[in-house]
């Protein structure tokens, strides 16, 4: 083969890759699902929400600049601070992690895309629709105004809080679902989509953080979703979960909210620290020192962060000993956090540090975050918190941790990764201005607040009289806030206008060692010219020939002959190549599904229940179409493929080797967490009630009885057995056996769901009467809905079998559905055991 011939072949390969991965032109551009496009939209949208919430903060600072100000009415001020917190937390801090991870993760993993591109796009559109809905409410004077943690009974009282509370609950629930979807995708991405040879001990630290944070989202968000369900049921149907007069307790919401809320702080913090873990080694010109320590810190923080929630409830009058446990955990979590910081310092000490704008922001982050961490250690001591809680001291503390731990590293990351995404560097000269404006502005704004708070200023007050020693401190804070905002505007200006004028740069501007810098800049849509085998934590430093080999297409998947989007799937621990995964291409379906489901949520907020039901069902239908056309794709010509270098990989794998099985498994973990939160609510009422369950008119404890729950359980067992049978028949290549087993199982499941709902109905349990009866209903409805969803899946399998999509050879769907049914059966068993047996024991 001549040289010219070779070059021609390579150019043709590259051309095919480009075509296959290209985003469509014109208006069809918005059907793109590739991580490069979705990641960009996601990042920009989250950043716009950040600017919006920042503008709200400036309004507050204007109002509070002088005593007795009337710039904002109390009603508007309450909406402004509620929306500021809500948008910053739910529409900026968490989504920006997902955005950046979707954008960067594949480039670090040598993957062409994440395993479920359409899921990323769906998540993005959910986020966009929900975010615009929540933010837009303030322009109609209808924004939520109960504080970002929405404590009932203020917010469950429909007289005191209007539609804003519904907008908050439904808009954010919708976004939370999207967050969980993104978490599932990122976890599977890290575990299964690494390049060959990248073992668990050589993957970039960023991936470790993404893995941990994904896991945390999976366990932190579902309790809030469960709480939202209870909350919305109380607002709309008067089920008294948080009404003390009818056996409920407002504190239950605080528990559920903060079981989510505190891990969330670390969900925000860890991904930003992850960016630092990429930046610091690059500018220290050496591998990170203490890679294992970082893993310790990330995993340790991930766990400990779930034992902190009551430190937001130190003043609710819980017994000292309970406070003590959470105080102890709150102190303990400082240990792994400290380790992370010292790992960076140690890496700098053992390297030769080059100063740069990203490092400047990293240094600023250190100064601010360490300060916030130290005040955090203070407020973790309950007696001090009794003074500091809900005062401006806490406002100062939380901004020190979040701005130091999240925003500054993020800006550092923006300077660092701008060339990767745009192909150009941001201005270093302007960067210094941005830094000093933001750094000084931040400290001028927030340092005085520590003293404002200890001098007695509670948070969330719309105005204050003079003469309490708060006047000057507040004025200084307001000035600082504007200086800070000016710094932020400057960096926005540089992105929007400054960047255009600058020259494009060649690859790897920082001389970094990790895989994302291997491609020409800006990174092409297909990501990698070919997917290399990685043998080091810093392949660009340790495998000098790698960049050229990858660029010349000498590694895996250098081509897209069949015109399909392909990426590699590898094993969890050792990164052994397992599959060549074909991922679906551009489609409007994710957007349509998000719009339909979003409309259903929005309709519910406006009490348009029939509209919501119809459009929600249309959304479910659209999702079915999406699944049918985009998942478990059967390869058309051959079932394996030579991916290069003589490596032949299957195109279709099922069971626990398939990414879909992992996604189902992980999703169901989240689902179980939400369910356990509901069970927790049940037992929470047990602890607070002197008599539980409350006695009925006949004096016996209220309950759904034994007969119907027992029937439901029997039928459920049958349905589950039917699914096992269906899988076995399919394995034996017995299509009719599969179909009949599916039908049998579906009938039994529907019967079981009906028996579950009939049980409390025939026992006359009235959900508006008492928190207990409401909880029994919620548990049973939750379970019945899971069974109905399971029947939907069975129908899908049945259709697949009839269409020849599901056979003994092509059996992804049946394996995943059986997996779902394991969890559904467990949910049913637990529910029935709880609701039927507890009244019996009492």
């Amino acid at each position: 083969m001549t040289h010219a011939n070779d070059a021609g072949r390579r150019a043709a390969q590259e051309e095919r890759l480009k075509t296959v991965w290209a985003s469509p032109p014109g208006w069809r551009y918005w059907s793109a699902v590739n991580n490069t496009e979705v990641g960009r939209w996601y990042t920009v949208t989250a950043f716009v929400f950040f600017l919006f919430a920042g503008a709200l903060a400036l309004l507050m600072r204007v109002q509070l600049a002088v005593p007795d100000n009337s710039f904002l009415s109390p009603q508007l001020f309450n909406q402004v601070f509620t929306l500021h917190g809500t948008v910053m937390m739910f529409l900026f801090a968490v989504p920006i992690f997902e955005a950046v991870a979707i954008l960067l993760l594949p480039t670090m993993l040598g993957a062409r895309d994440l395993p479920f591109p359409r899921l990323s796009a769906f998540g993005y559109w959910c986020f966009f629709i929900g975010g615009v809905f929540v933010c837009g409410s303030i322009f109609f004077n209808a924004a939520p105004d109960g504080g970002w943690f929405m404590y009932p009974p203020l917010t469950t009282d429909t007289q005191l809080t209007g539609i804003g509370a519904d907008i908050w609950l439904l808009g954010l629930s919708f976004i939370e679902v999207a967050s969980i979807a993104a978490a599932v995708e990122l976890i599977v991405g890290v575990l299964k989509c690494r390049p060959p040879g990248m073992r668990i001990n050589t993957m970039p630290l960023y991936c470790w953080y993404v893995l941990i944070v994904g896991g945390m989202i999976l366990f932190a968000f579902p309790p809030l979703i469960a709480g939202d369900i209870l909350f919305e049921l109380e607002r709309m149907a008067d089920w008294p979960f948080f009404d003390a007069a009818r056996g409920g307790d407002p504190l239950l919401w605080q528990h559920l909210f903060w079981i989510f809320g505190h891990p969330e702080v670390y969900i925000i913090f860890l991904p930003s620290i992850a960016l630092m873990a990429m930046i610091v080694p690059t500018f220290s010109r050496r591998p990170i020192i203490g890679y294992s320590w970082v893993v310790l810190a990330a995993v340790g923080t991930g766990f400990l962060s779930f034992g902190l929630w009551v430190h937001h409830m130190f003043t609710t009058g819980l017994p000292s000993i309970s406070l003590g446990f959470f105080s102890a955990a709150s102190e303990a979590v400082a240990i792994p956090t400290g380790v992370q910081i010292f790992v960076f310092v140690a890496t700098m000490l053992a390297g030769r540090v080059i100063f740069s704008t990203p490092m400047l922001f990293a240094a600023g982050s250190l100064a601010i975050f360490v300060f916030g961490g130290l005040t955090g250690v203070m407020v973790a001591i309950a007696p001090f918190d009794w003074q500091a809680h809900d005062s401006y001291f806490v406002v100062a503390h939380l901004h020190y941790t979040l701005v130091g731990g999240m925003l500054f590293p993020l800006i550092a990351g923006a300077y660092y990764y701008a060339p990767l995404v745009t192909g150009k560097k941001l201005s270093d000269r302007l960067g210094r201005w941005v830094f000093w404006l933001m750094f000084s502005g931040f400290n001028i704004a927030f340092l005085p607040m520590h003293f404002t708070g200890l001098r007695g200023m509670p948070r969330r007050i719309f105005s204050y009289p003079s003469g309490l020693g708060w006047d000057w401190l507040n004025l200084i804070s307001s000035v600082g806030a504007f200086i800070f905002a000016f710094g932020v505007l400057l960096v926005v200006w540089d992105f929007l206008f400054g960047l255009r004028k600058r020259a494009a740069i060649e690859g790897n501007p920082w001389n970094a060692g990790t895989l994302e810098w291997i491609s020409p800049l800006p990174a092409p849509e297909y990501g990698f010219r070919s997917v290399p085998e990685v043998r080091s934590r810093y392949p660009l430093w340790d495998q000098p020939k790698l960049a050229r080999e990858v660029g010349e297409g000498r590694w895996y998947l250098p081509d897209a002959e069949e015109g399909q989007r392909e990426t590699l799937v590898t094993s969890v621990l050792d990164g052994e190549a397992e599959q060549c995964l074909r991922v679906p291409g551009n489609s409007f379906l994710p957007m349509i599904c998000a719009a339909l489901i979003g409309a259903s949520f929005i309709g519910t907020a406006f009490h348009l229940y029939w509209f919501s039901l119809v459009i929600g069902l249309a959304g479910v239908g659209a999702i079915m179409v999406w699944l049918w056309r985009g998942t478990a794709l059967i390869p058309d010509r051959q079932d394996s493929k030579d991916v290069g270098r003589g490596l032949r990989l299957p195109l279709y794998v099922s069971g626990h080797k398939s990414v879909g099985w992992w996604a189902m498994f992980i999703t169901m973990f989240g689902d179980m967490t939400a369910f356990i939160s509901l069970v927790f609510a049940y037992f929470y009422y047990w602890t607070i009630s002197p008599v539980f369950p409350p006695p009925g008119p006949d004096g016996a404890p209220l309950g759904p009885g034994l007969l119907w729950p027992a029937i439901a359980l029997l039928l459920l067992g049958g349905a589950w057995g039917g699914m096992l049978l269906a899988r076995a028949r399919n394995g034996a290549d017995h299509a009719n056996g599969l179909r009949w087993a599916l039908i049998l199982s579906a009938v039994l499941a529907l019967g079981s769901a009906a028996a579950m709902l009939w049980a409390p109905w025939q026992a006359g349990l009235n959900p508006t009467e008492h928190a207990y009866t409401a909880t029994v209903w919620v548990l049973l409805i939750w379970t019945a809905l899971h069974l109905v969803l399971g029947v939907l899946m069975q129908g899908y399998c049945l259709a697949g079998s009839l269409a020849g999509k599901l056979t003994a050879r092509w059996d992804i769907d049946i394996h995943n559905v059986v997996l779902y049914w394991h969890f559904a059966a467990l949910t049913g068993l637990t529910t029935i055991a709880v609701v039927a047996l507890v009244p019996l024991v009492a």
Partner: protein
Amino acid sequence: MVLRLRDKADLWTLLMPPAVWALHFLFCYVAAAVTCAKFASVNLNRPGTGQILASLEPLRLTIAVATIIALILIGISARQAWRHWGFGIEDPPHDQPTDEDRQRFLGYATLLLSGLSFVSVIFIALPAFLIQDCR
């Protein structure tokens, strides 16, 4: 015998020490909350009856036992990790793309996590011994 729990380190062995911490934490919190709610009536619907001063003596013993069990489990995990790490013969970073280094890395990280979990379990047990009643 315990040492043969798992010959190969993986993500589950990595998560074992903090999982023990989580279970211990949950146990302590639930035990204390239920004790105070059910036996000492801290809800205080009749304030000042003195019940809040109800002693936590029996709870302390329970928590002591739970703590010892948790520490032993973490110790087992640490010993196993120590073995996976190769008894510390080789220093980190364990960054070679080999089965041995993957095993050593997981062992070392698990060992560090055992240390953190061990300290955290002791932290969590402290309140039970420094706070005597349900006030």
